[in-house]
């Protein structure tokens, strides 16, 4: 069952990837092309998902919006992984003062409501794509650092690691070649769920007007649509569905990977 859902998730995300890649060919209109005659027009023949306040085609905006969501998700999770995994692995492996200080920083950052910090940062830095990525990375690495540290801590006293030390392997080699491959399964699972979380956070920031202003994003469409929710619900509904499907897709994949690797661990 979990396996089937994982394939569904993979299908959704695959579709999303293709959409983002070939957006210019898929989108029927210029996503930012204003057509005031079609103000808040509902779904119809010319515009399958309708038009927004300025008459821009919603389908085209949703298609282009996938690019922002994916780029933000992948870049933020990528950067967070690099920072989190290296800091967490070093802290877990070497321990000592570095570990203590790093973990206190992690505790402090985890005690912060994440989205609030991101709102504050994006607000101070200014609303654009780069700053949203930055704001989400500031907290993004924390979870991975903590997870990897714990895993490394458990793994570093396993006998195969002691054997590698006794053979004279260097510390970097032990961490990279011996320990990390054995802690990667939970990290990848975490990263998959992380992608969903980051995309949701990006939508929230865009919804609050802190996202990039010059490109269509799902969050901003949602924000706009919220104002006309009563008489033009289609404006908010379709980007909302896109966000939901994307988050669901990544979560399905995450669940599937988790089940799969858990099974293998006990086998």
């Amino acid at each position, binding site marked *: 069952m979990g396996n089937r859902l994982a394939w569904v998730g993979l299908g959704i995300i695959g579709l999303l990837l293709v959409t983002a890649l070939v957006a210019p060919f898929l989108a029927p209109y210029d996503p930012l092309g204003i057509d005031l005659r079609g103000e808040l027009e509902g779904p119809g023949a010319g515009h399958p998902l309708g038009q927004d306040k300025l008459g821009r085609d919603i389908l085209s905006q949703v298609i282009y919006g996938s690019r922002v969501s994916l780029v933000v998700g992948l870049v933020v999770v990528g950067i967070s992984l690099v920072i989190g995994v290296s800091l967490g692995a070093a802290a877990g492996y070497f321990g000592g003062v570095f570990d203590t200080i790093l973990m206190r920083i992690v505790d402090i950052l985890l005690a912060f409501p994440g989205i609030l910090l991101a709102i504050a940062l994006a607000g101070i830095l200014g609303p654009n794509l780069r700053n949203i990525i930055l704001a989400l990375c500031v907290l993004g690495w924390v979870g991975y650092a903590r997870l990897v540290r714990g895993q490394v801590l458990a793994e570093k006293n*396993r*006998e*195969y690691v*002691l*054997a*590698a*030390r*006794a*053979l*004279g*392997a260097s510390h970097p080699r032990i961490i990279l070649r*011996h320990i990390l*491959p*054995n802690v990667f399964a939970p990290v990848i699972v975490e990263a998959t769920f992380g992608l969903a979380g980051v995309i949701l956070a990006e939508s929230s920031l865009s919804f609050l007007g802190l996202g990039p202003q010059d490109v269509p994003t799902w969050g901003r469409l949602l924000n706009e649509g919220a104002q006309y929710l009563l008489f033009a619900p289609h404006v908010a509904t379709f980007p909302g569905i896109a966000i939901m499907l994307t988050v669901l897709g990544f979560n399905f994949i995450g669940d599937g990977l988790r089940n799969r690797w858990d099974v293998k661990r006990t*086998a």
Partner: protein
Amino acid sequence: MNEKSLAMKQINPAHTAMLKVEGLKKYFPVRKGFLQGVIGWIKAVDSVAFEIYQGKTLGLVGESGCGKSTIGRLILKLLEPDEGRIIYQGQDISGLSEEKIKPLRKEMQIIFQDPYGSLNPRMTAGQSIEEGLRTVGVKGRSERKAQVAHLLEMVRIGADAAGLYPHQFSGGQRQRIGIARALSVNPSLIICDEPVSALDVSIQSQIINLLKELQNTLGVSYLFISHDLNVVGYLSDTVAVMYLGHIMEYAPAEALYDKPLHPYTLALLSAIPAPEPDDRHQLPALVGDVPSPFNPPPGCKFQGRCPLVEDRCRKGEIKIYQVGDGHTVRCWKVVGK
């Protein structure tokens, strides 16, 4: 490989110890509370001394938790000793830094108890063995491949096992791969940390015979750690019996089995099922578990379970008495009668 062991034999004649351990101590702090204050110490290894000779085996016996595995890790410098000296080929290695110890790493290797945890699950058998070859500077993929094949043959696994992952092997096969990995750097001393305790009895004897055979052909020395006096007796030239961090009795294997003197050794020996009822030793079997090593009472560490305990055993440190050639006992009763 053989030339090297022969050369080693010449530099190191049998009468000087290859490895000498003196006054070795390792105390682990016990921490408690929010601020993790130290509330006491566990004396895992307490003033331990022994010697290992070229091509010989020292058996280290004791119940679980007596500190025998800690000794193995201290010698390999996987743990730092608190006190004492570890003299390898005349050089004190106990204070050496991580960098300085590196060239000596290949001299001493370890085989572990758990055949499941001791191999990296994400590396093939060949890759695990190659790690050692890499650190001794065997360059070139094909050269390493050839040596891996040779090592696998030495431990009686086909060379084609190199491409398989640990979960594709049985426990005994994994243990052989662990041995091949240890041999990859051509060590002079191998610490065998309960290498057969997790195996079936039939497999145990295969592994023990393999170890014995490798010792004969390579001249390698063993520190053989086990809780099983039977297994140790079969393989060892000298035996040290440990209890809660102390070596209680230290003797050549024949002397220890023929004429055990410490009450603890007697108790352990009487726990071995004897084929003939008349062969049984005199003492009743031990009752209870090893007491907590945390804050033990003064006096003999064995006092809580010793059938011969007297008031005198509860006062002060018990001295070590020499009772024969290379035979020492940490019990005043052997002379005090």
